[in-house]
């Protein structure tokens, strides 16, 4: 077991290193931070631009391999370099991870919890009207891309605010910086409502499908009948035996999706004006910010592999069969 885990860790670290290096080379060769200084009025002397870029390890006149070595030696000591305008990438990363976590934590939890309950309910009511409605609803929601959904939500919120004459629902940013104390807390919660709906609706649809299928598989099995036959109430049989067993695959998916979501909420963050990791990915590419692009990719690769690890752990925690084999 130890040898297996160790080998897996080595191969994972190798994959992360390759992914991050590829991202760095790609960004360093095709993005052009010099462009951010060139069009200025009054014009900046080329020597000055060169010196500034050199200081941030962004100078395209230095061979790319040399820049890569500087970047890697920085990363090895925990320094991710400078953004195109000289701010430390580490600080920006920390701030943005915080924003993304505040947004995603509730969104993914709500998505998984509601999705699992809806799916389990649909399985118990198989082929009834409610099951069919849930099925059709999930099917339609899964066909709506998140950028369409998020825009629809902002339109609806704007319409509602217009109709009421005051802003009931906020749809830009994380909070209103003019407020403090309790008002700021409620403002934060208000700003969370729409992005959370936009994040979790798709997940609810997806989880409910998986959970329904898994639950139906389990409900048809002998141990549920045995549990009922030995006198267990229907509710106990459903909750303690069926639900727990059918949660295994969903839990795997949950761990995995949380890891990939950290950089994957691009559309929700951009449309609702949250400055998290997903928004950073797009903004750093658009602003030719090589070191930030590399940092986001490194972070994303680590997250994916960590999520894979986490999902293995969760499965072995709730599924005894895995622990034995």
């Amino acid at each position: 077991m130890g040898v297996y885990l160790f080998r897996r860790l080595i191969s994972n670290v190798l994959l992360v290193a390759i992914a991050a290096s590829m991202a760095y080379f790609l960004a360093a060769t095709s993005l052009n931070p010099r462009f951010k200084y060139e069009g200025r009025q009054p014009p900046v002397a080329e020597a000055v631009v060169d010196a500034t870029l050199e200081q941030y390890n962004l100078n395209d006149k230095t061979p790319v391999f040399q820049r890569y070595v500087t970047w890697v030696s920085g990363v090895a000591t925990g320094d991710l370099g400078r953004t195109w305008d000289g701010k430390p990438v580490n600080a920006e990363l920390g701030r943005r991870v915080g924003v993304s976590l505040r947004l995603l934590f509730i969104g993914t939890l709500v998505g998984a919890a509601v999705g699992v309950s809806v799916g389990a309910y649909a399985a118990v009511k198989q082929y009834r009207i409610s099951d069919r409605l849930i099925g059709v609803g999930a099917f339609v929601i899964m066909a709506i891309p998140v950028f369409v959904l998020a825009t629809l939500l902002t339109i609806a919120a704007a319409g509602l605010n217009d109709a009421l004459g005051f802003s009931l629902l906020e749809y830009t940013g994380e909070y209103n910086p003019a407020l403090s104390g309790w008002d700021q807390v409620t403002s934060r919660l208000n700003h969370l409502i729409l992005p959370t709906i936009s994040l979790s609706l798709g997940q609810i649809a997806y989880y409910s499908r998986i959970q329904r299928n898994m639950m139906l598989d389990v409900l048809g099995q002998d141990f549920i009948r045995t549990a009922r036959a030995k006198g267990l109430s229907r509710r106990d049989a459903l909750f303690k035996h069926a639900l727990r067993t059918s949660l295994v695959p969903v839990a795997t998916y949950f761990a995995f999706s949380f890891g990939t979501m950290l950089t994957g909420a691009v559309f929700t963050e951009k449309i609702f004006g949250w400055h998290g990791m997903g928004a950073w990915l797009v903004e750093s590419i658009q602003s030719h910010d090589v070191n930030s692009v590399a940092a986001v990719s490194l972070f994303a690769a680590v997250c994916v592999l960590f999520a894979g690890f986490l999902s293995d752990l969760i499965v072995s925690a709730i599924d005894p069969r895995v622990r034995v084999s």
Partner: protein
Amino acid sequence: MRSKLVLKRMLRNPQARYGLLALALLLLLAYIGPLFGPHDWTEKDFLAFMEPPSGDHWWGTTQIGQDVYAVTLRGMQKSIIIGFLVALVSTGLAALVGATAGYLGGWADRALMWVTDLLLVLPSFLIIAIISPRLKGGSWLWFVVLLAVFSWMITSRMVRSMTLSLREREFVLAARYMGIPAWKIILRHVVPNISSLLIIDATLNVSAAIIGEAALSFFGFGIQPPDVSLGTLIADGSAKAIGYPWLFAFPAGLLVLLVLSVNLVGDGLRDALDPGSNQ
């Protein structure tokens, strides 16, 4: 004979029937619709900027005076072509790589699966986002290639595991002992036997590719102007959706309908080809 049976089973399924009907209507709208519109998609009407839908401009106009009806249908044609091409290439790639890895085994298997794992880890969004706008002058076909290259991996793993069991079946062994070369066995005996998986996968890839294209174009990383796709139109429209809803409603609505109908067909195909599955 089997294809006839599958078709019959599929048409018996109301979901699949509606899906096929909707898909056919959408294809007609995209390719025949522009012929009936009063304006061409390149035309600019300098007397009508941001006009709401009217008799002359059926779906309204954009801020540079383009006819939304004509532009949206043009974008839809592009999205449809991209969706089908990406699905074809990616499913083909998945079948070839998976079947080759599974059939040959040994170092070839390890190497191919390592590439698959690597592609799964690579930040695909980032790579496509950086490369595709820089293929200036290069045609949108490069964009199709990029989308396809990053969407075949999971299916190829499934193909591989199915091939592993097919490899030991009598008809494959017989072919091998007759001295038929490996590539011929893979193409003639292995791939046709996993065709139901591939057909279902290709259908679902169409909708995934349409959404993927729209998502990348949303940030300007996909189809480049002056060309349009549903993604670029939705991106333009969503910024102004609150004051000028027609800019957003028509492309977004058509995208959702397109994805929905393709998914319905895919689901119907799955039920018809693989009655045991309860997905």
